[in-house]
């Protein structure tokens, strides 16, 4: 699946932090829950035109799913594939719960400022996204429904949402193969439905690999007629690219 066994790059983002970078098409971003209990908020944009962004409703309704796992593709609002989930150890990741904000964090875990705690201060997902988005000239208008990797939120027959505790374990891994160049904005702040007594602070290990070429029999590409058409749209987009 991967040309190289050793990553091109390997890094650890502390819990309760934020970071961003551009993934190039044809590369794999591996997300590893280093300690167990991680939550990774993520947003995605096209660096050539950031008005093209990850679209939760299109991703879900095209694949008739409420959860994200291996075999699914992550769609932009322009009918194209940002990334394919080519490995997933957990079977369920959330993209419908949004992210925690300053009020939510203060109410649940208390306010802890930089002056109080230096780099262990309580960051929240909303401000973290804005902080990273600003580096690309983006802002509040660009915020959209985010992904929450390693977190599970299920529903009952009446639509009541329930956060599933202890869903992710140490070493749990997700591999995302990027099909387009993508601005990846992420944070390691708590899931907004996590009710842990202490501010949950779990690091993310991430690694970069070169991806094997995508064949016509690729499991993500043929996972549904909708995904196949999204790959066709993405190929058309790349037709005129250098």
């Amino acid at each position, binding site marked *: 699946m991967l040309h190289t066994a050793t990553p091109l790059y390997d890094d650890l983002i502390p819990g309760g932090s934020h970071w961003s970078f551009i993934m190039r098409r044809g590369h794999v971003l591996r997300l590893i829950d280093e300690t167990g209990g991680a939550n990774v908020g993520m947003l995605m944009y096209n660096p050539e035109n950031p*008005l093209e962004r990850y679209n939760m409703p299109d991703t879900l309704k095209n694949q008739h799913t409420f959860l994200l796992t291996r075999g699914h593709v992550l769609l932009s609002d322009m009918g194209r594939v940002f990334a394919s989930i080519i490995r997933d150890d957990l079977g369920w990741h959330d993209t419908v719960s949004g992210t925690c904000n300053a009020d939510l964090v203060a109410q649940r875990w208390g306010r802890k400022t930089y002056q109080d705690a230096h780099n262990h201060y309580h960051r929240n997902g909303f401000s973290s996204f804005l902080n990273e988005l600003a580096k690309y000239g983006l802002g509040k208008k660009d915020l959209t429904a985010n992904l929450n990797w390693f977190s599970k939120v299920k529903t009952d027959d009446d639509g009541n949402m329930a956060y599933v505790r202890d869903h992710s374990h140490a070493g749990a891994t997700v591999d995302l193969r990027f099909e387009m160049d993508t601005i990846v904005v992420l944070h390691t702040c708590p899931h907004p439905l996590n009710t842990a007594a202490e501010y949950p602070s779990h690091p993310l290990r991430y690694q970069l690999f070169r991806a094997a070429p995508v064949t016509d029999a690729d499991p993500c590409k043929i996972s549904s007629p909708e995904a196949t058409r999204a790959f066709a749209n993405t190929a058309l987009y790349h037709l005129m690219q250098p």
Partner: protein
Amino acid sequence: MIKESELHPETAQFREIVPAGEYFLKVVKTGETVRILDLEGNQAADTLFYNAHNPTERYSAVDTIREQGNVYLTAGSKLMSSENNVMLEITADTCGRHDTLGGACAAESNTTRYALEKKCMHACRDSWLVAVTEHDELGMTKRDITHNINFFMNVPVTADGGLTFADGISDAGKYVELRAEMDVLVMISNCPQLNNPCNAYNPTPIEVLVWS
């Protein structure tokens, strides 16, 4: 939850019929009530709300469902903004359930959902884009188009994580009513979708009523 309104259409200060494929744009003031009426049944009213004084603050589908702990909207649901404020509350609903996970149709998503050659068919996002470009004074662009409510649409989520598009549960004369908790800009695309069996491939008009 089914809850009938005590308001009578004859006393409404404002009434407008919105044909399928058209947009509706109006400011509703704090304390006013807006009703969206499904005139012929199983029509999708794709609706966005903005703070009328600062459209950077807008309806947030994910914050709304998370804060109420339920993925469906009905009477009693408080619609939350991206800034964690209550924008409106659903005060009456004769339909019982509305979707906010399925998003709006767009020309591009029609290519993936239905067929690549459907790309030039009219879609909700096109109606919103026309709305914001015809109203320069709002200072809004595609950047402001976010995840909406699909009034009258039923998109059940299953316990094992499935998402299905069920037949409509609305009918002619059913309505949803909302009281504004801040001055809100209401932007509706009355869905022109011709590929979805939920509306029997026949998009129909809605009516919008406002009481002060």
